[in-house]
């Protein structure tokens, strides 16, 4: 027994020493690159769209399978999904900048950083200000900061104009539904909360800790308007489901709307404003009549 243990230890120590020498013989060093970057890989539809807005689409060499907007983006080389990227593909494209989000697998980003590739990650947009912040940062990265600031100023002007329209109108209670099974609502952690408030509405689940809510609670809080993000067929099914709850004001007044989930979930400052104008039309059709 003792002899066994001693030989075991010997074998193990030797093997380990070997492994250690092997693994430390090589380490990638990050290389400093002059900005602006010329070979960019985007790991999120929103970032791809923003890069197109900034007019640097010719520098994008890789996108995710989800990047379908603008249509031209769908033709770019695919390097994986939003959550799982194919690191091999990324390296073989020789990018000088990879832009990810909080959704990108951190193991993948760490690996790319170890190999000396510049990886920048942005957290998910929680509100409009953060959206603008990300847009400006992107502008800085590609050397188009001025343009980014101008676009945001434009967007803010349009927002103020829209808000003036709805000033003084009654603030309706809005329920925005992101998922159906389980029922998932928008809380204050989503930029959609800003959308509702800018449009002169009240998000009935602003105070909720988590988006998991019960139908009962929706009925109790009685929204005037229900907005469902289309999830393929489920959106229409949900629309029918709500019809059973006749006590809800939104059902009584036929105020249940479907909005395309792509627009709701991957925003840029510009698409935010377009979406806002649509939501204002839903909340306050009277503001647009006459």
């Amino acid at each position, binding site marked *: 027994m003792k002899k066994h243990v001693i030989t075991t230890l010997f074998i193990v120590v030797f093997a380990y020493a070997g492994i*250690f020498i092997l693994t430390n013989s090589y380490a990638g060093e990050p290389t400093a690159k002059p900005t602006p970057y010329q070979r960019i890989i985007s790991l999120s539809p929103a970032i791809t769209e923003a890069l197109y807005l900034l007019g640097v689409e010719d520098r994008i060499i890789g996108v995710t399978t989800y990047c379908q907007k603008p249509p031209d983006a769908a033709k770019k080389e695919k390097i994986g999904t939003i959550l799982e990227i194919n*690191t091999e593909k990324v*390296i073989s494209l020789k990018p000088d900048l990879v832009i990810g989000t909080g959704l990108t697998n951190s*193991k993948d980003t760490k*690996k790319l950083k170890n190999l000396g590739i510049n990886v920048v990650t942005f957290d998910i947009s929680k509100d409009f200000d953060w959206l603008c912040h990300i847009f400006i940062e992107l502008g800085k990265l590609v050397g188009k900061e001025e343009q980014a600031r101008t676009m945001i100023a434009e967007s803010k002007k349009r927002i103020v104009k829209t808000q003036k329209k709805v000033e003084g109108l009654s603030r309706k209670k809005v329920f925005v539904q992101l998922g159906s099974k389980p029922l998932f609502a928008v809380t204050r952690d989503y930029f959609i909360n800003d959308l509702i408030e800018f449009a002169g509405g009240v998000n009935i689940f602003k105070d909720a800790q988590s988006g998991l809510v019960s139908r009962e609670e929706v009925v109790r809080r009685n929204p005037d308007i229900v907005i469902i993000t289309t999830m393929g067929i489920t959106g229409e099914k949900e629309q029918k489901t709500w019809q059973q709850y006749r006590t809800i004001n939104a059902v009584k007044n036929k105020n249940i709307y479907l909005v395309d989930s792509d627009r709701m979930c991957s925003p840029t400052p510009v698409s935010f404003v377009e979406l806002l104008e649509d939501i204002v039309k839903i909340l306050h059709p009277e503001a647009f009549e006459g």
Partner: protein
Amino acid sequence: MKKTILNWRYSILLSVGFLLAASLYSLSSGSSDITLKDVIPTLLRGSGTPEFSILFDIRIPRILLGFAVGGSLSLAGVILQGMFRNPLVEPYTLGISGGAALGVALCIILGLHRIFPDLAMPLFGFIGAFAVALPISLINIRKGTVKTEGLLLTGVMISYISSSIVTLILAISRTEDLQGIIFWIMGSLEEPSWLLISIVLFISLTCLVLSYIFSLDLNALALGEEEAVHLGVNVERAKKMLFLIASVLTGVSVSIAGIIGFVGLVVPHFVRMLAGYDHRVLLVMSFLTGAGFLIFCDTLARTIISPVELPVGVITGILGGSLFVYALSRRFLK
């Protein structure tokens, strides 16, 4: 002893061959075309080219981790099946991996993975695995005897409890934490840290050697505990040690690579079909075959619908399960 299909020397050779073939297949397949012929020149030419870094920093670490994790899981499976004389036991049915998943979910929800980014998740997975293994063994090891049935039942129950708590955590967690937990549960051999990979390799090989010391005790246990005692085996000590080894193997693998099912269940059965029931051969051969099997599955997961990468557990489940059913049916037809 039953008559085996293969002599032990051939068995070991076969599994080494399989492991090598799987590794070479893995080394030469992926989204960028590097054929087998190019591998050696590329590595010799040294760093600097993207091909080199794809081979050296992406494929080789994955092969090494697949070797360690696949080997560990099937070794743990052989040990537990031998101990309990029950063909359905594996690290997952004993709730050890459920505990690890719970540990990781707690770590993410408490935000600890942001404080020590590299080590927190594996560490918590490991603690979770042990937090489950210890009560299971403490509840069932009384007055120096281990009750096998009790151990199994407790394990299954604890595994249900932890998976329910993980689901509870998923239900109340924020969006950005959700995906961290789900990634980890899906299992993957992607690991950027060489240090962690070498730790896992080291531990898995150490456990292989340690369990080999107990291979004769396992053979005796296969006859039943009473008989083993009569043969002069210190049954309680052997069982405690073996359970500890299996828990360490599972805890380490699960904490690094997440939950990869089926390897610990399928591989040992296959190896037994080929090489018989002598644990001196079984332990080593299961380790090698499990390693090869996981490397092979991981390569499929990387390449089937490139550029999208599938979770490796999907492939181990489908491939392992169907091969297994096929082999069993052939066996019964004979």
